[in-house]
């Protein structure tokens, strides 16, 4: 180990910051080299000076002033330690809990919509049947109250009939009544769809029940229900209701 290398290591050697093996080599060199030994003394004196590099003694007033300023700064924050810390801990953002809550809410909302739609579908079928079987003003009004469907009478041509389960059921019912099926089949759908009710009233209203006019009672009453889905419209034909009509007579026609 030459002097140049030792001189590089001396700053660490004087404070025993070198590894044991390296320190022993430096010690061996310093013992045999006067110049490097002098450098060691100089570094040691410099280090002693550093260790004496103490601040002047500060008075207690200085420390008290620092403490007071710090306490004044944190005072508003610490006046209500219990409540503020509790609130802070409660509302401290925690990513895991936030994500878990969001997922839970998403699942709940999805389940709610799924169940709600399913219930509406189940409710529509019996109500419509009821309306068809007993086409009185009160039954039409009941069906009007269903949220997903609205009753439309004779509005425009028939469109989008395919794929409607309720309509196929209704057609089966109509088909089972020979008299009615004949009247339905003989009627021009487009012309019928453009017709209004015999008295021109909207069936959606309670007073929209067509009058029991003998002249018009022979014509089938066309009732359309537009569901929320614009592609699904429920249409059925009913005989003009009479006071003596009953669900059992309906199949016989008028």
């Amino acid at each position, binding site marked *: 180990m030459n002097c140049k290398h030792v001189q*590089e290591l001396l*700053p*660490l050697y*004087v*404070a025993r*910051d070198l590894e044991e093996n390296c320190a022993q080599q430096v010690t061996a060199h310093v013992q045999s080299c006067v110049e490097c030994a*002098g450098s060691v*003394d*100089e*570094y040691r*004196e*410099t*280090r*002693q*000076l*550093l*260790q*004496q*590099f*103490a*601040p*002047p003694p*500060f008075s207690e007033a*200085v*420390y008290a*002033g*620092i*403490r007071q*300023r*710090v*306490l004044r*700064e*944190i*005072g508003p924050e*610490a006046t209500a*330690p*219990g409540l*503020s*810390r509790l609130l802070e801990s409660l509302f401290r953002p925690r990513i895991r809990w936030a994500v878990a809550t969001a997922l839970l809410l998403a699942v709940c909302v999805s389940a709610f919509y799924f169940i709600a739609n399913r219930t509406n579908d189940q409710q529509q079928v019996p109500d419509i049947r009821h309306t068809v079987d007993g086409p009185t003003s009160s039954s039409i009004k009941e069906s009007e109250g269903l949220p997903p469907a609205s009753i439309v009478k004779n509005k425009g041509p028939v469109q989008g009939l395919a794929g409607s389960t309720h309509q196929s059921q209704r057609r089966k019912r109509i088909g089972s009544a020979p008299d009615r099926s004949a009247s339905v089949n003989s009627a021009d759908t487009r012309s019928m769809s453009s017709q209004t009710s015999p008295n021109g009233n909207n069936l959606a209203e309670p007073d929209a029940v067509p009058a029991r006019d003998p002249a018009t009672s022979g014509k089938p009453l066309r009732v359309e229900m537009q569901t929320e889905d614009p592609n699904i419209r429920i249409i059925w034909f009913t005989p003009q209701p009479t006071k003596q009509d009953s669900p059992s007579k309906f199949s016989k026609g008028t």
Partner: protein
Amino acid sequence: MYVGSSKFAQVPSGARDMALAVEILLPVNALTQTQTSLTHLIERAASGDTAAFEQIMIHSQQRVMAMTWRMLGNEADARDASQEVFLRVYKYLGRFKQDQDFFAWLYTITVNVCRDLAKKRQHHSDRFMSLAAGADEGAFAVPAEQEDAEEALMHTQQRELIARAMATLPHKKRASIVLRDVEGLPTDEVARIMKSSSTTVRSQISSARKKIKIYCEQYLRRKERSQ
């Protein structure tokens, strides 16, 4: 041969030993006597107990003030830095882990605060130098009743010399040398405080010692020539 060695050798060894004893006495005693109670105080302070936090400040104020003074070189900046250190300690006390060394954590905050303050005050280096040159009358004053006039003058000159030498060091080297040689912490502990590796800290310390030694040699050489 070291140029200034003859001058420094004239300083009575008693004065140096006394100053050294005071420097070591405070941290060691504070650490051993208050370690248990300090943990309890930290828990209370973290829950918002300001009285407990004041006790923590009392325990650590001398250490923080000395460190900030050594890093910044004057009392005014040291006061501001110490205040900021304690504010940060209070703010982040909830993040302090009980298995950590509180004073190492405190030193980390202190070093960061001093760095930020030095950046904020661009004239830091000039101010350090001006104060080291004696502009601040009380900065390097030594009580007359402790030492006679000659010793006081010698002591002041030594502090002035080291202060000037420290002012030439960049922040990281100054922090490393203060923590290692002045505070007496082991190199590994310094590395943890500085959030660096031991090798890097050793390199910084070695470079800082070399620079300070060269500065002292040049300063005393100029002084001898002027005389």
